């Protein structure tokens, strides 16, 4: 599904964000990427949809090596992922419905009735069907994050990438959000979550990749060889 083969990322001659990272994530796995701030969690996640280009090594997604992908094909790669961000990144001049429908509209493959059906199904999954006409800024932080999740899953991606999805939420809401991720994972979606929230990770029985100083220092079930 996702293969990192000796991947590095440098932002300058003296700035190594990631160094010689190798791992493989199979389809249907739920994986946490953890580490201190600056360990390289976000950078690792950004490399998968080519938001950043690797400086070295090879990244394979769904059997396709993405290192030399042309500019025209990058949008097609990104449509395979659902992305969730810490700061939600919703458009406040559109309704919740329009925000969630965005990935379907830009794919150009669905008719309006189908878009409507899928958007409502996604909102129902996150428990926000009654808020479809609301403007995002009128929602609570937890509700906005759930709208972000609905937008990420509406196109039924193979992989969900979540970068600090609970960074702005209290523990109770964070637990709710993780349960949503688990629900999608149970449906077969591969989920990769970058988070420094160890208490939450401890509660989950899933694989954990631990980064320290841009290096992969732990990759196992409940292995916390790189404590904060």
């Amino acid at each position, binding site marked *: 599904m996702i293969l990192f083969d000796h991947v590095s990322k440098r932002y300058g001659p003296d700035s190594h964000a990631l160094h010689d990272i190798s791992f493989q994530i199979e389809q249907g796995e739920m994986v946490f990427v953890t580490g201190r701030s600056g360990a390289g969690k976000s950078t690792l996640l950004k490399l998968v*949809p080519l*938001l950043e280009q690797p400086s070295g090594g090879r990244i394979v997604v*769904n059997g396709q090596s993405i290192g030399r992908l042309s*500019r*025209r094909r990058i*949008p*097609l*790669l*990104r*449509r*395979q992922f659902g*992305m969730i961000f810490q700061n939600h*990144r919703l*458009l406040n001049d559109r309704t919740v419905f329009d925000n969630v429908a*965005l*990935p379907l*509209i*830009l*794919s*150009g*493959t*669905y*008719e*309006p009735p189908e878009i409507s059906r899928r958007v409502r*199904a*996604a909102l129902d*999954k996150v428990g926000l069907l009654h808020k479809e006409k609301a403007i995002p800024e009128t929602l609570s932080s937890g509700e906005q994050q759930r709208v972000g999740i609905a*937008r990420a*899953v509406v*196109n*039924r*991606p*193979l992989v969900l990438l979540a970068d600090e999805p609970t960074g702005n939420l209290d523990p109770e809401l964070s637990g709710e959000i993780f349960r949503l991720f688990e629900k*999608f994972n149970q*449906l*077969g*979606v591969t989920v990769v979550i970058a988070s420094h929230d160890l208490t939450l990770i401890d509660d989950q029985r899933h694989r954990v990749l631990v980064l320290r100083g841009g290096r992969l220092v732990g990759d196992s079930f409940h292995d916390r060889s790189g404590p904060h």
Partner: protein
Amino acid sequence: MQPKQPQRAARVLKKRPLLRLKNYFRHHLNAASFSLLQILKSPVATLLTVATIGVTLALPLSMILVLSGIQSATEQWQHPTQVSIFLPPETRSATIDELTRQIGQWEEVEQVVHMTPAAALEEFKSFTGLDDALALLDDNPFPNVLIISPAKRVTDPQQAQALVDKVAAIPGVDKVEFDLQWVQRIHALVRALQYALFVLALLLAGAVLFTIGNTIRLTIHSRRDEIELVKLIGASDAFVRRPFLYGGLWYGFLGAFFAWILIGLIIYWMNTPLAQLVQLYGGVFQVPDVSLGYIFASILFSIFLGVLGAWLTVGRHLRFLAPR
């Protein structure tokens, strides 16, 4: 909600090309209406931009119309273009009549008038008042003269010179006089105005391009977050570019519309003073009727400038708007 397989989606698309085409046009329609709504959301800013474009376009468009009117008026100025043929004193009346008839049948000639020596003498007396001095002369010094008025289509110096050469080649013609210099001056003036107008139109088209480009640039900056987001979730450059191109189209269209309102006012104000000026020179000035084709072509050109300005601006900025 099972995750889809990308290969299966690709197979579906291949079997449903019509669906993709429908959605393509639907997105164009949405982009066009969305960009128009965005423009109308800021009426004051939009009005300023549209007025700038309108004034810029109105200048060359109205000058073209005025120039057309001046060209028509110059064609009416006949006196300076008259050709005078002086015949030898011994030329017989029959020969003069035959010459008058022959030249009168040329298609480049409007009219031929025979001024006899007696008529010329009377005219000279009335202009100069030298009756007593002329009475001392034994003979009438004035020759027979044929005064040729060229046809209206003989407008440029080359055509006029061709007529003069043709007349001079007639056997028995003593001398031909023609004020070519005046025609050359008028013609050169009109040509110079045409070139100046062309250069001005180019410069003003550039100004329209920059105005629309700058407006689009500001719009891109204000929607930077949205652009980065949609690129992040898989929008192609064409998807991102589309609403801005339609923005350029709308500005071009509205600018041309504003320009024609201004032109209507300009023509209304300038028609009377220009007509009076030309009338003093014995001509008739009127701004030619504006054809629908001319209006349509100018609107199309303005739309082209709008889309081009937007294209150049978006292309430049899209490369720097990488999703973060």
